[in-house]
């Protein structure tokens, strides 16, 4: 009798699995390869050789404290955390950020930032630490300075203590060197912001192991969305790899005028030059990887900055964002112009080809998705998110810093 129940139970489980699989897609060899390329997750932690503080616990601790310190700003009221809020995937709910002035772009989320090659929507920085300097010095954002940052690190007892743990010679450093030390500590902290494993990762690993039972736990709608993503949609061409980003810049037909929506026709506008402007900035940035602040000039990380040149196509291109834990980072796109994921999907479904050059982004075509397909794609995108505890770890680091250097 017990054996009969066991066999019947197994049959029921198998039947349920097959019932779920019946409306799930079958992936061919090419699609399977593409799906597997989006993992494994999480990737191995590799230290940033341009940043001698990368991975060092005492630097991570200092970085976490500085990240939330409003005294880095000129008016003493704005910190990195003001726009990169933990509860929003280290982005924010506003479409366009507000520093000392209203800015032109949405604050990008910082989860998995360490996996990037270029930083910011326009890639105006080539390291996470240089990207951490930019908002401090920008007069439209935090409006701080090297001198003020250095003074804070020298004269504020807890910060001076934390900095001393990072580098005993910190207090004697030049202002610019102390600014770089602060930025490298903040980068070390941001490197720890990694999104968690998700339902997609479980499916991907089950697929790799040919574990059909485990595969059936991934909802059929998400599987159909994945089939669209890696198939007809060709989304994975740019949203590639474990972080779902090729790290490069593209024009997806999105308008890049700057200004509030609803302006009457004929109102003069400004445009965001995107990557074109970013290349110009990174080339002359004294904190780029060709400069003296790079702790390992022989690192391959410095190769891209040597070779990058402005191209016509870069005008209005923006970085391909990673897609992990994207639920938390709404609104979307470089200017926060898409309120939710449905609006993003609709953009690609109804893509205006006339906005793309005839010899430009050849893979971009209107997807003309039906309602069911949009729902499937949404289910897949949502499956790339999972509960994560970076906000709690951030608070724990700050509390630890207060204990070490009260």
């Amino acid at each position, binding site marked *: 009798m017990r054996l009969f129940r066991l066999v019947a139970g197994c049959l029921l489980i198998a039947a349920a699995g097959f019932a779920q699989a019946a409306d799930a897609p079958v992936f061919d060899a090419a699609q399977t390869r593409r799906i597997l390329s989006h993992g494994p997750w999480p990737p191995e932690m590799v230290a940033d050789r341009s940043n001698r503080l990368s991975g060092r616990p005492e630097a991570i601790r200092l970085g976490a404290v500085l990240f939330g310190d409003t005294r880095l700003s000129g008016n003493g009221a704005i910190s990195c955390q003001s726009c990169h809020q933990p509860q929003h995937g280290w982005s924010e709910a506003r479409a366009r950020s507000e520093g000392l002035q209203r800015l032109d772009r949405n604050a990008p989320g910082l989860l998995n930032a360490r996996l990037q090659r270029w930083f910011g929507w326009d890639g105006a920085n080539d390291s996470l630490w240089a990207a951490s300097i930019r908002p401090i010095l920008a007069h439209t954002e935090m409006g701080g300075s090297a001198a003020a940052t250095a003074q804070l690190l020298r004269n504020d007892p807890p910060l001076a203590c934390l900095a001393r743990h990072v580098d005993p010679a910190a207090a004697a450093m030049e202002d610019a060197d102390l600014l770089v030390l602060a930025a490298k500590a903040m980068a070390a902290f941001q490197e720890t912001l990694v999104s968690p494993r998700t339902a997609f990762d479980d499916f991907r690993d089950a697929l790799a192991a040919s574990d059909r039972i485990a595969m059936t736990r991934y909802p059929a709608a998400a599987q159909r969305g994945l089939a669209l993503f890696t198939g007809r949609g060709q989304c994975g061409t740019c949203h590639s790899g474990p972080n779902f980003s090729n790290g490069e810049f593209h024009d997806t037909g999105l308008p890049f005028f700057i200004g509030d929506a609803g302006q009457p*026709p*004929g109102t*003069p506008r400004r445009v965001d030059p995107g990557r074109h402007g970013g290349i110009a900035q990174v080339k002359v940035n004294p904190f780029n990887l060709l400069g003296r602040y790079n702790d390992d000039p022989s690192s391959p990380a410095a190769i891209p900055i040597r070779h990058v040149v402005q191209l*016509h196509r870069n*005008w209005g291109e923006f970085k391909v964002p990673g897609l992990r834990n994207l639920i938390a980072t709404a609104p979307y796109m470089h200017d926060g112009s898409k309120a939710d994921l449905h609006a993003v999907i609709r953009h690609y479904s109804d893509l205006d080809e*006339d906005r793309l*050059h005839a010899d430009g982004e050849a893979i971009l075509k209107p997807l003309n998705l039906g309602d069911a397909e949009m729902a499937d794609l949404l289910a897949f995108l949502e499956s790339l998110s999972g509960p994560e505890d970076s906000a709690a770890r951030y608070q724990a680091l700050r509390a630890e810093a207060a204990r070490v250097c009260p």
Partner: protein
Amino acid sequence: MIRYSLFAILLLAAVPAQAQQQAQQLAQQPASILPLIDAHVHYSHDAWDNLPTADAIAILRRANLRKVLVSSSSDEGTQRLYQAAPDIIVPELRPYRRRGEIGSWFRDDSIITHMEARLAQYRYVGIGEFHLYGADADLPVPRRMVALARQYKLFLHAHSDGDAVERLFRHDPDTIILWAHSGFDRPDAVRALLKRYPNLWADLAFRNDHASGSKVDPAWRALFEEFPDRFMVGTDTFTPERWYYIEEHAKWSRAWLADLPAPLAERIAFRNAEALFARTGFRIDR
């Protein structure tokens, strides 16, 4: 010829005072600034929605452009610019009534009526920029377009592959073609067509391979030297936002042109475009 001369006189009379003043300012520019003709600009309906005509003209003048070859979807954009600044705008007729006809115009008989009506009403230097590839060039609409170009003494501004360019020449060996983007072809392929067709000219719009930064690529340099009288520069404002790139593009063009001997640089910068316009009888105001 009489018709064009009369047309030019009427134009001069129609130049608004502001435009004349701006033209005078242009003439007073330092001699060190290389004159430039931008041979690839569009001002389509979404452009004029976001960029008023006066602002568009101001961008062109800030870029120190001597002339600008403009075509638009619809043609109304070109006419708006031309009326505002006939001293700088050189109009050509795009066979599109609106955006979205890039892939269908050559099978749409009503385009013929559209072209005929506009050509009867307005003056142009060419027909284009149009998109046409391969055997589509043999369809009735493109054939009629070639005939209209001959009738009105206009050049064709073709965004085409080499195959379509050759088919257009077969329809009328005397036609004149400005090959948009030099077909995005390699220097050797461009050379082959330039050798074969003396009436073929080429713009360099939206391509980067001929110069990196301010340095001219050796293969392209050889091609420029072999055909010094065929090339010209252009921005290609295929979206409204790209109007704001015109100044940047002009700066870049002047930078790489400075890497060439001055006589060759001047030809590519503006003399070739002037010569092309002159082939059509269109008067160039200096």
